[in-house]
């Protein structure tokens, strides 16, 4: 009996990716939401020449709320369909959290891949330190996925619909938002990576702390 | 005494009100607890 946590985690991830490929509920809502929000934002700002600070904030606000539109699907779809019972019977809790965490990370990856080019078309940035932008997005996404996955589990267990997920998630994500905007602002101003060290340190420590805390707390959310 | 005495009096009055209200709550709960013990 080989029970390596990596294998069980990947099993959960593969299962979610396969279900998502067929049902397309999470990716759909995330992409749709981001396109809609971005269009609305660019309509309201398109005409004016806006500086790097505003663009950085816009990017992260659209990213955050598009993410919040889809990141709870991972758990909510399990409780709504009732498969959470089978999952609880068969899978180790840590692998469930990590599998869903990686699935949310995948969602954010897809979101970034769609959003950044679209953003560059609608609200073009003259020049930027693309490397620093990537670092900010990747680290930010890890932090985002870490805490939203646990909050999604809480909301799913509470069996509650609607906006509670966003209400609970937003205040917890403020540090990522602030640091993300800070790093992106410096990226759009083509500053070197070293200049954004405070932001990067915040993003890294936030992601680490939240991932560790979520792993410890998840058992209490998952088991009745 | 500077010219903020009016504000001072007001804040003191508010505090006395709060204190009285909390003391009343405290007494009411103690009475309830005694009654439940019987």
């Amino acid at each position, binding site marked *: 009996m080989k029970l390596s946590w990596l294998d069980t985690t990947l099993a959960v991830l593969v299962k979610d990716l396969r279900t998502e490929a067929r049902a397309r509920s999470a990716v759909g809502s995330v992409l749709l939401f981001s396109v809609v929000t971005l269009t609305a934002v660019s309509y309201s700002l398109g005409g004016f020449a806006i500086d790097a600070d505003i663009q950085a904030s816009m990017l992260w606000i659209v990213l955050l709320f598009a993410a919040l539109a889809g990141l709870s699907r991972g758990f909510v779809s399990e409780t709504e369909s009732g498969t959470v019972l089978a999952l609880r019977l068969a899978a180790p809790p840590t692998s469930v959290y990590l599998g869903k965490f990686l699935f949310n990370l995948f969602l954010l990856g897809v979101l970034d891949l769609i959003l950044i080019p679209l953003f560059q078309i609608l609200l073009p940035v003259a020049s930027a330190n693309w490397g620093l932008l990537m670092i900010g997005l990747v680290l930010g996404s890890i932090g985002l996925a870490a805490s939203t996955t646990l909050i999604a589990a809480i909301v799913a267990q509470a069996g509650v619909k609607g906006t509670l997920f966003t209400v609970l998630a937003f*205040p917890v994500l403020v540090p990522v938002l602030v640091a993300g905007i800070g790093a992106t602002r410096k990226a759009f101003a083509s500053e070197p990576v070293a200049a954004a060290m405070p932001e990067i340190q915040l993003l890294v420590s936030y992601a680490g702390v939240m991932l560790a805390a979520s792993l410890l*707390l998840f058992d209490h*959310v998952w088991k009745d | 005494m500077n010219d903020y005495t009016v504000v001072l009096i007001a804040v003191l009055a508010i505090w006395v009100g709060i204190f009285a209200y909390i003391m009343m709550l405290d007494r009411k709960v103690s009475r309830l607890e005694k009654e439940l013990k019987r």
Partner: protein
Amino acid sequence: MRSALKWLLGVATAAFIVAAFTWAPEMYRPNFATGGSDPWPTFRIVFFHVPAAWLCVIAFLVSMIWSIKVLRGYAPEKDDKAMASAQLGQVFAILALISGMLWAWRDWGALWNWDPRQSSVLILTLIYAGYFTLRSSIDDPEKRARLAGVYSILAFITVPFLIFVVPRVMHTLHPSPVIPDAQEKGSMNTDMRVVLYSGVFCYLGLFAWVMSIRTRIEAVRRRLSTR
């Protein structure tokens, strides 16, 4: 003996209020036009604003500690304490926000000046709002205590980020207000700090007292419902 303590708290807080208005030395702020400095009476609100902000965080810490105890082993009394301290934390947060806005309005004409500490209190208020919304959406007492407890622990972990790290990063986002940030406690002399800390103690006494009443009310309510 207990009630003597309460009366002592009452008198001490009254003394603190009087001291904040009279005994505490006058604060000055530089006047760029004249190069000198002129008195800053509205600064005295700091004695009410800062302790409230402190208590808002302390109450959240107490709520988190009781939430950890709930996760270790559920008992209704533990959950009552977690909820009661969160409720008081929300009250102190609102108090801090109001006093902060009052001060900002008097001094800078704007109700909100995006001072990083001020916005972290706002975020705390949002967290409390989320916490209570979550609590009200779950019926089973044990499940409610457990899930709300987990959220309060996760949310509290962001508080150090909000208070220590975000202000440093946030300063780069906004030019700090023209007048040097006199709110920094560092610029207060010892007499002022004595008054400030006595304020914190009075608030702490009030917090402990109201919390004990709150939890006793919950205990009575539970005994009534099961008689």
